[in-house]
């Protein structure tokens, strides 16, 4: 059988060997924890605590405001120090709750269940919603909405996105090796919601040990199969993943549910497991701290809100001076100008590099080589779109399917003239979306590419 994949894509240096063989380590925060009220797509959460309040680990500190939104929970016990704007990875200042850690980790009571069988479908979705679970691959779309499509009986596949195609990232890999049963149980919980669906664990074939392990553990599960995908970026982008595993293709205006699919990444599924089985809200995530500037690159289980400085310290500090620091992977992550920002629900990695390809290489004239067209998974013409964007030719940009770009970054990566194609196209897309008065379509697109 031909390998499962899609048309286009690239093979960048993957840097996974830096951190893949070291077990996940827990980090206990020392300093203050910062919780931006907007760590998901949709309306920012509304604080339910005030300055001076004492909070416990697992206590709700902000509630969802509106349908597309998610609550936020304290991940340590301590005192609310301030509710004020703080800088986040995107460089914006976002209203945040600041909690002073008392170091006691006093927890609230959770309400675990023996088995998901005793819960109704509505209760399962309710628990996921209440726990504040969002897409942890990067987009941060509230998960309960994905789990409640209009016609649940029309969902044929529930896909666990275990591709982890983004270079350097190994958090999903470690999670699959160390806690595969949580992933599988989480997938089974999702399958309970969709009576006609089959579960797919979609793993890139650069992780043969995970594929073997998951196959062994699911050999008696009739509804679950493990599928090996060709290793290629952006294999884990939602639309490319659906195509590779099911042969169905959707455009940017469609939702996975339109192709009968529900897709969630590894950490999100584990969070679903915690929410449903243990009644625990989303409080931590795995972050890969890596790059050639880091002394001891590895994965950490991090309490959300922990400052990035502390993660670097835990990883042995810098062995060389970093020039560029990225929150997330090198393809889709955000460049940050200093480390003083908090970990959020969607912070998959902290990548510290001693050289910056982007500023080192100066853009020159396009030679029309067509490499961007070859690699574009959206099958558009990046070179033309960037041209139209530069000249603000809206009509041409839209008629050449500019809005179908998923911002995966493949075109900028391959461009021999080092033109910032993705950036140019992205800016134009943002302007068009703003003009339509619409928020970015409520789904993950390429932003999910990390997983």
């Amino acid at each position, binding site marked *: 059988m031909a390998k499962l994949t899609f048309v286009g894509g690239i093979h960048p240096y993957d840097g996974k060997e830096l951190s893949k063989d070291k077990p996940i380590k827990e980090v206990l925060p020392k300093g203050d924890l910062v919780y931006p009220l907007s760590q998901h797509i949709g309306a920012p959460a509304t604080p339910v605590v005030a300055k001076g309040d004492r909070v416990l680990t697992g206590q709700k500190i902000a509630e969802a405001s509106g349908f597309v939104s998610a609550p936020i929970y304290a991940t340590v016990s301590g005192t609310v120090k301030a509710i004020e704007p703080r800088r986040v990875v995107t460089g914006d200042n976002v209203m945040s709750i600041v909690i002073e850690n008392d170091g006691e980790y006093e927890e609230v009571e959770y309400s675990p269940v023996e088995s998901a069988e005793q819960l109704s479908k509505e209760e399962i979705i309710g628990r996921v919603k209440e726990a504040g679970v969002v897409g942890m691959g990067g987009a941060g779309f509230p998960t309960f909405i994905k789990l409640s499509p209009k016609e649940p009986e029309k969902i044929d596949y529930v896909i666990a996105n275990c591709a982890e195609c983004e270079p350097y990232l190994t958090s999903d890999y470690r999670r699959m090796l160390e806690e595969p049963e949580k992933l599988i149980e989480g997938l089974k919980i999702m399958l309970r919601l969709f009576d006609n669906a089959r579960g797919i664990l979609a793993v890139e074939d650069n992780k043969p040990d995970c594929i073997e392990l998951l196959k062994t553990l699911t050999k008696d599960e009739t509804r679950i199969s493990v599928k090996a995908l060709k290793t290629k970026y952006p294999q884990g982008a939602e639309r490319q993943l659906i195509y590779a595993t099911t042969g169905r293709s959707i455009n940017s205006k469609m939702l996975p549910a339109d192709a009968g699919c529900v897709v969630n990444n590894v950490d999100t599924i584990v969070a679903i497991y915690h929410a449903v089985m243990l009644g625990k809200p989303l409080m931590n995530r795995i972050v890969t701290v890596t790059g050639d500037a880091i002394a001891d690159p590895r994965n950490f289980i991090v309490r959300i809100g922990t400052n990035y400085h502390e993660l670097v310290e835990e990883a042995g500090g810098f062995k060389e001076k970093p*020039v560029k620091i990225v929150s997330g992977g090198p393809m889709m992550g955000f460049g940050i100008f200093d480390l003083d920002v908090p970990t959020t629900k969607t912070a998959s990695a902290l990548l510290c590099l001693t050289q910056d390809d982007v500023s080192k290489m100066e853009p020159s004239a396009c030679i029309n080589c067509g490499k961007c067209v070859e690699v574009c998974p959206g099958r558009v013409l990046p070179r033309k779109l960037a041209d139209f964007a530069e000249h603000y030719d809206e009509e041409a940009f839209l008629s050449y399917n500019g809005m179908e770009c998923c911002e995966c970054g493949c075109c900028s990566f391959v461009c021999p003239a080092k033109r910032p194609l993705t950036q140019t196209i992205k800016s134009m897309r943002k302007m068009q979306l703003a003009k339509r008065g619409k928020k970015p379509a409520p789904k993950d697109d390429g932003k999910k590419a990390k997983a």
Partner: protein
Amino acid sequence: MSDLMKVSSNPHVRSKVTTSSIMLAVVIALLPAAGFGIYNFGIDALILIAVTVASTVLTELAYEKLMNKKVTIGDYSAVVTGLLLALNLPSTAPWWIGVIGGVFAILVVKMLFGGLGQNFMNPALAARCFLLISFTSIMTNFECDTYTGATPLAAIKSGESVDILSMVIGKTSGTIGETSMIAIVLGACFLILLGVIDLRIPGSYIVSFVLFVGLFGGHGFDPAYISAQIAGGGLMLGAFFMATDYVTRPITKNGQYLFGILLGVLTGIFRIFGPSSEGVSYAIIIGNLLVPLIEKITLPKAFGMKGGRRA
């Protein structure tokens, strides 16, 4: 942390392939053909190649200096143009032909239209056609010390027989770089292996050309006639090195097939029905002019449009 990091939009990594590394690869790929030309035609060929390359590079340098623009000769694109132009000249041409051709290619066809990436036709071919029209007798004089007869294609056109083997090796008369099919294919394989070019355009060009001459050439699909048509003239050099010129070929995949077919048909028409036995240069520059239209009608369907399903 006191000093701030560099920030930029994603992605934060770039491939190692650059414009100059691509152009350098093309230069290397042209060396077998150039080397064989020098072996075949002697020192005259070497001098002409050197003068033409110097002319293209110095023209670009002088223009950019005079216009206070950033000097871009380091990207090797002017070297590629000069080399291609030289390989399309007869070894008997005087040195000033190379100089005029080089100036025309770079100044008129490339720089005046905005420099690298902006020219609407292949500079080397446009210069060759300009020279062919302006200095017809010089440009069609293939009588040198080694060869006194007509080029193989001219011989076929007038009904004489040709030796296929010497055409494949390149021991015939013609322009400096076009005679040896082996040397050209060797260079082309190098570029294909490096991923600089692919077979879409050369493949569809050669296949459609073969079909056309088979149908209309008056010799049917006679193997000797067909192979002579393939190995003869500028077809191989044109198909692998000039029709594939990034700037002047369509960027869409389907457009590239269409472009190749168009060139095949045009070359066939010029060779069979035209007054000259050659036709590759004119076919390619006419094809270049049609590129915007070809791109317009071959716009690809974006991923997931119309909800197509994989078979």
